[in-house]
């Protein structure tokens, strides 16, 4: 049971006429009864792997590397020898579409044809077998006389599955088993495949961009981007804690995994990828200049997890350890923070929620270096935060305050206010500074081109406008981490909604991480990846957004009041 039945070694596929390989140096091995999921955006090379294993690309592409079936290298065999392996040993369920099935044969005839070609069954036996197969995949045998165009998408998918199972293969490759199926049919299909896999013990490869399908059917997962494997690991772990920015982007884009959150796709490329460097470089939120030139290798980052990233996966941008802070007040000691631990990874939105007075702002100020903790340390990019060493620089850490009225110097003009950090840090020439200010204001949906607006004094602006000017002032330094302390709580609901969407949009395109502090649970749920819940100075709960909320609503009754607020 434990022997490896399929091994793919350094598989590279270059389509004729294409420059970039569709599949690049892919390695994996499958044991009997095991399962593997392949995920990735369209065009990432998932299907090409399946087709290459099935030997269907020999005419249209150059294939390098080797595919072994129980020690036999399939590429070295003659066409005739090879064909004895396909369907009987390795079968593939093609992506469901009308074109996949022969339109002039009934579905029953097509399955029978497959059986007759690859097995030694007689006509009568094969007719029986077809019936049996159709029942197995939950298809009414009487409808075997239908033509493909007379069937619905779900039924055609069943027919395709029956066809692939017809010769009892040891390896089953399924390409997008559930696309174009409605929710009910999708569930049935997943149940069916899971049942068959349990029963027949074949090795299963599921190719899909739908994460719930992969999550339900496979135990291991590989994430593909532009033909390369960028992350590999146990399905459950990878989906719970992705280590590559691309994987995280895919997970964040899945409505099924994020039932409450707003959906944000991975932003498009900001520039062309270089041929030498990391493929994902143009879209990565934690890239370094060196990523441009050196391709990353798929390497172990910890047990059962491989990531192709120069930075060893998503880096932890900020780490707070054992942070404590107390205030003395009329002889009483108020513990604002007690032994708080917090970690923020690059490009991640972390929400810190809690009631008023739970110590959120104190923690935020300690993290940004504005306030010194009594005990504990904060590290930003592995460097200890003290004073303004993390914030007084480009690509550092910035904080935006709750009260837009106190956060801006009222006598400053809008331009002066946004330009202030550039001036303090002496970045760029006067012309460059002005251009940057204008661009930043435009990105925050303020009339940056309007000279009159630039010359307006801050006290003439509304609260929403001021908060945006304050945000522009922080973002002009292109921070890697933005600490947003209740930035929307003083705004009306409509302004708040606009502001949050805009901010989240900017966060998504620019890729900075954000610590979003709020007492509004619903809001946190809309935008956060991870949440920390604070109460009386302690962090009482942390985790991915969905998990933490179920805890809040079910386990701890008092948290409901927070939700009610």
């Amino acid at each position, binding site marked *: 049971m434990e022997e490896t039945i399929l091994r793919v070694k350094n598989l590279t596929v270059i389509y004729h006429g294409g420059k970039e390989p569709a599949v690049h140096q892919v390695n994996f091995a499958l044991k009997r009864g095991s399962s593997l999921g392949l995920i990735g955006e369209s065009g990432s090379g998932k299907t090409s792997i399946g087709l290459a294993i099935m030997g269907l690309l020999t005419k249209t592409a150059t294939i390098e590397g080797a595919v072994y079936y129980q020690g036999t290298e399939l590429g070295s065999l003659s066409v005739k020898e090879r064909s004895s392996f396909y369907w009987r040993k390795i079968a593939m369920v093609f992506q469901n579409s009308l074109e996949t099935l022969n339109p002039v044969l009934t579905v029953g005839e097509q399955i029978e044809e497959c059986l007759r070609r690859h097995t030694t069954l007689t006509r009568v036996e094969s007719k029986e077998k077809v019936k049996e197969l159709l029942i197995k995949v939950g298809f009414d045998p009487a409808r075997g006389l239908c033509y493909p165009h007379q069937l619905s998408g779900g039924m055609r998918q069943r027919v395709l599955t029956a066809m692939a199972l017809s010769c009892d293969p040891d390896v089953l490759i399924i390409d997008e088993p559930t696309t174009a199926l409605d929710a009910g049919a999708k569930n049935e299909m997943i149940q069916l495949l899971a049942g068959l896999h349990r029963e027949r013990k074949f090795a299963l490869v599921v190719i899909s961009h739908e994460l719930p399908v992969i999550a339900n059917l496979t135990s291991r997962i590989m994430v593909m981007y532009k033909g390369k494997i960028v992350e590999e690991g146990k399905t459950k772990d990878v989906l719970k804690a992705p280590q590559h920015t691309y994987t995280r982007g895919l997970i964040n884009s899945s409505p099924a995994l994020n039932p409450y959150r707003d959906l944000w796709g991975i932003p498009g490329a900001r520039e062309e990828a270089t041929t030498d460097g990391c493929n994902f470089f143009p879209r990565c939120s934690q890239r370094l200049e060196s990523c441009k030139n050196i391709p990353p290798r798929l390497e172990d980052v910890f047990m059962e997890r491989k990531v192709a990233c120069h930075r060893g996966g998503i880096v932890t941008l900020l780490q707070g350890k054992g942070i404590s802070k107390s205030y003395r007040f009329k002889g009483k000691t108020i513990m604002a923070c007690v032994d708080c631990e917090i970690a923020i990874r690059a490009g991640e939105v972390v929400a810190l929620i809690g009631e008023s007075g739970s110590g959120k702002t104190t923690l935020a100020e300690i993290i940004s270096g504005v306030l010194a903790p009594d005990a504990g340390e904060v590290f930003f990019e592995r460097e200890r935060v003290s004073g*303004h060493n993390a914030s007084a620089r480009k690509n550092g850490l910035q904080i935006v305050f709750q009260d837009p009225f106190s956060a801006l110097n009222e006598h400053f003009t809008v331009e002066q206010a946004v330009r202030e950090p550039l001036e303090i840090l002496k970045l760029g020439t006067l012309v460059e500074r002005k251009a940057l200010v204008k661009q930043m204001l435009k990105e925050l949906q303020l009339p940056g081109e309007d000279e009159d607006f630039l010359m307006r004094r801050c006290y003439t602006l509304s609260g929403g406008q001021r908060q945006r000017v304050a945000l522009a*002032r922080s973002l002009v330094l292109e921070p890697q981490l933005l600490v947003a302390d209740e930035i929307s709580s003083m705004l009306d609901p409509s302004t708040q909604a606009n502001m949050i969407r805009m901010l989240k949009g900017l966060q998504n395109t620019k890729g900075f991480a954000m610590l979003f502090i709020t007492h509004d649970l619903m809001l946190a749920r809309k935008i956060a990846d991870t949440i920390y819940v604070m109460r009386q100075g302690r962090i009482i709960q942390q985790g991915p957004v969905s998990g933490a909320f179920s805890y809040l609503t079910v386990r701890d009754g008092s948290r409901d009041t927070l939700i009610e607020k």
Partner: protein
Amino acid sequence: MDKRRQVVGKLKFTSRLALVILLVVILFGLGADLFAFHSPQLPSGPALEGPSRVHWLGTDDLGIDLWAQICQGARISILVGFGVAVLAGIGGGLIGMLAGYYGGCIDRLVMRTIDLMLVLPDLLLMIVLGAFFGPSISNIIIVLSLLSWAAPARIVRSRLISLKQEQRVTAAYSYGAGFWHLTRYHFLPELLPLLMVSNIKLVGKTIVAEASLSFLGLGDPTAKSWGIILNHAINFSGIYFTPYWRWWVLSPLVALTVLIAAIAVLSRDIEKIINTKI
């Protein structure tokens, strides 16, 4: 410029009048030689004369024109008043700023010194220091400055501490702003109006203090300040035998009172305007 016009526009009638008086006194003080027609040092007529067309306010025991002396005295009052205000205002303001900005040890030291300054009896100390340093205008300015920096320092310190708590200052600090940037863009625009009010008050106080010192004979005898005129008048042993003494005593007294009253009215009104946000 706009702002100054706004402030002037908001002044009440009384304080506009006060402003005019102040400006006139400054004008007469600066142009003493132009407006006096007679020498403030040399006799220019008979002694102890009442007001006439030649001598507007009469003459003193030596026949020196009183109007010329009053004009000369205005110059000294203005010089001492504003000199001390500037010196004590800037010095005290700076000390207050440093104490408020750096806090801790410096703050404690400055605050205790200020307490000490406030507790010490001003006039007594002034007399002692005046006698010690010797009578001259510059010494008087220095002595008075030493005694009056505490008030502006306190005011500036307390405002600075509250300014430091404001998030715009925290934000600027987080971008790496140092003392100079913060002072230039965030502190000074807020502190200057406060300092202005406190300094105008200080001008009034100082003028009175200088007059008191001079009256007591501790002023610069060569400088004809209003206090010295009064001192001379009172010390003239024959003063009560002539009917003219009242002109001699009255004119410096009235000049002093009018100027102080004008400054007091003006400072009160400006304070009101500045306290409500413009």
